[in-house]
């Protein structure tokens, strides 16, 4: 590991910031963008908004959004022996729970166990799982009802691929930061928005889009792939370039935005894939329907094992996403 890109990915993915508790990731991203942007502010829901450019006759007010939050767990009950029952924040998959390690926002680590399994062929439900933080009774348990944790898993390189617990969507945050770094000038008034509470229903994007009132919106987020054994059919693979979203469960991307993205990729010789995601949605769906409506699209990073503690992306897709996003924001947005 040498590249600054990988160091940034490692730094951002190893921070614990589940939805609603984005303070640490916000501080880390603020540190990265404060020297790159013309202006940085935080809104009432905690979105970090970095502006670049003042706009021009040929420019638009553009909102680029990547969410800072990650899925996590929240304590609902501490029993007499100090075991913690919990529920999910965002789309938790019970299959990935037992044996996972977690870390609370306060820093306390723990492991996930489950009630006795009577049917070994069936994954335990959320209600059957608990977190063990090494407490010997309820009174000395350092976790209280309502405390929040994320999955503990260090960043890992496997060949060309990068694995981390929160690629969704720290990798989008990395793409926006690197775009901001690469951007020499822009005709636009471009807002790089690092949003909160995406995993619980695109809440941060809803309010930041209202505040920015953009002419054009793009999300950067992960998408599923169809290149692993016996997976659902999907025409997106790791390593074949960032994906231009055409449709997901929450949005039909504006065809003019799709055309602009594809045209720009082809003109600059950047590989890309066309994406149709049958389930899932991104911040773009909130941007699209804010106020009187906004042309919106999404640049996706193909990602395996989304919402597991080992989400995998291809480094080349990340670099190409930065190139494409930089090209998009550098020139006029002809849609």
């Amino acid at each position, binding site marked *: 590991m040498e590249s600054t890109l990988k160091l940034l990915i490692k730094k951002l993915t190893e921070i614990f910031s589940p*939805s*609603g*508790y*984005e*303070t*640490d990731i*916000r501080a880390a991203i603020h540190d990265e963008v404060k020297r790159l942007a013309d202006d940085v502010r935080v*809104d*009432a*829901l*905690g*979105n970090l908004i970095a502006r670049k450019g003042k706009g021009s006759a040929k420019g638009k007010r553009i909102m680029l959004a990547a969410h800072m939050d990650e899925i996590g767990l*929240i*304590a*609902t*009950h501490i*029993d*007499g022996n100090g075991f913690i*029952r919990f*529920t999910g*924040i965002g789309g938790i998959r019970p299959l990935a729970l037992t044996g996972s390690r977690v870390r609370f*926002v306060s820093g306390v680590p723990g492991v996930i166990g489950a009630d006795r399994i009577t049917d070994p062929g069936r994954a335990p439900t959320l*209600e059957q799982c608990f977190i063990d933080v090494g407490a010997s009774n309820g009174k000395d348990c350092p976790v*209280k*009802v*309502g405390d929040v944790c994320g999955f503990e898993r260090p960043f890992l390189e496997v060949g060309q691929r990068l694995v981390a617990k929160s690629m969704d969507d720290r990798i989008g945050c990395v793409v926006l930061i690197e775009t901001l770094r690469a951007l020499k000038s822009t005709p636009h008034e471009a807002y790089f928005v690092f949003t909160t*509470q995406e995993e*619980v229903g695109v*809440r*941060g994007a*809803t*309010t*930041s889009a*209202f*505040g920015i009132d953009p002419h054009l919106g793009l999300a950067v987020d992960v998408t599923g792939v169809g290149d692993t054994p016996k997976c659902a059919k999907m025409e997106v693979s790791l390593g074949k370039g960032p994906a231009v979203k055409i449709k997901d469960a929450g949005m039909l991307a504006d065809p003019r935005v799709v055309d602009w993205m594809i045209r720009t990729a082809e003109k600059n010789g950047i590989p890309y894939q066309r994406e149709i995601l049958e389930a899932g949605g991104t911040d773009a769906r909130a941007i699209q329907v804010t106020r009187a409506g906004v042309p919106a699209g999404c640049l996706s990073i193909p990602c395996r094992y989304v919402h597991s503690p080992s989400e995998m992306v291809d480094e080349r897709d990340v670099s190409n996403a930065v190139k494409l996003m930089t090209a998009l924001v550098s020139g006029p947005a002809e849609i």
Partner: protein
Amino acid sequence: MATIGNTQIKLLEKLCNACAVSGDEGEVRAIVLDSIKGHADTVKVDTLGNVLATRSGTARKHLRVMLAAHMDEVGFMLVAEDGEGIYRFETVGGLDVRQLVGKPVWVGHDHLPGVIGARPIHLTTVEERSKTIPLDALRIDIGPGGKAKLGDRATFATKFQRSGSSFISKALDNRLGVATLVELVRDAPPNIDLLAAFTVQEENGLRGAKVAAHALHPDLAIAIDSTPANDLPAWDDEDNPAYNTKLGLGPAIYIADTGTLSDPRLVRHFAAAGDAEGIPYQFRQPGGGGTDAGAIHKEHTGIPSLSVSVPHRYSHTAASIARLDDWKNYLALIQAALRRMEPDLLETDKV
């Protein structure tokens, strides 16, 4: 400082015996308007029927705080007449169909008495009795000659009662909140702008709160509501890790529900107010459910929000039960927290 005495309990009784199924909140709205008359600086009823009442603070710098309590309740709507005063109906809001059969109801603005009819045990088979009767097989019977119309709402015909230190009613959710908010308007703390919203249509999707928050555009918001307690003593803690809240432990502060992740600064502020003034409180278990905060916090560029609820058992049934002490502590906690709101409350980072 206002507390809960006979006047407040009388108001709660009146509010509970009124019928205000979502979309038809006029009866409760009239009581609210009457109760706050002369106490607010401005009062208006908006397009959807929310009552918006404001009281300006006297401090030079102060926060604008929205307090939202929904006026509506779950119930029924008549949708077709079968003849002889027998009506098909739909449920409004979250109701368990298993609990409807055999219950007396009040229909329409005149509270016409009726019953959700049931075949008597003499005429049913063992097999029939083991199955839930589906909604489309249930009818409300008010007898011939009644003046009900299609579209009329109906509620459970449960009169408010006191039983020792408890209240029993059909509509503690959320007349407890409405009665509390009336008290807060009548005796508002001077350090904030108090923006009261008595909202409509919470039970069918937080519809009134959304437009009320847009109009009031506050610095922060508190949803004033009621939440289920699932704490029957038949369970001890080990057997029942999903109690939601418990009766007698005081007001329930929300950290997370389906619709909202409470602003951690407001959670801390309310807990600190309780600690400082010796007012008991509990944290509602994070999980499902939702309040007006779910709509409010997403309005404009975001409104930091929190929900605080009175616990009550058997919510959304014909008769729920709450404790007087929980209500007293509820009002006390909200008053203490509001009084302690400094203008810089939201200037620290969120966590």
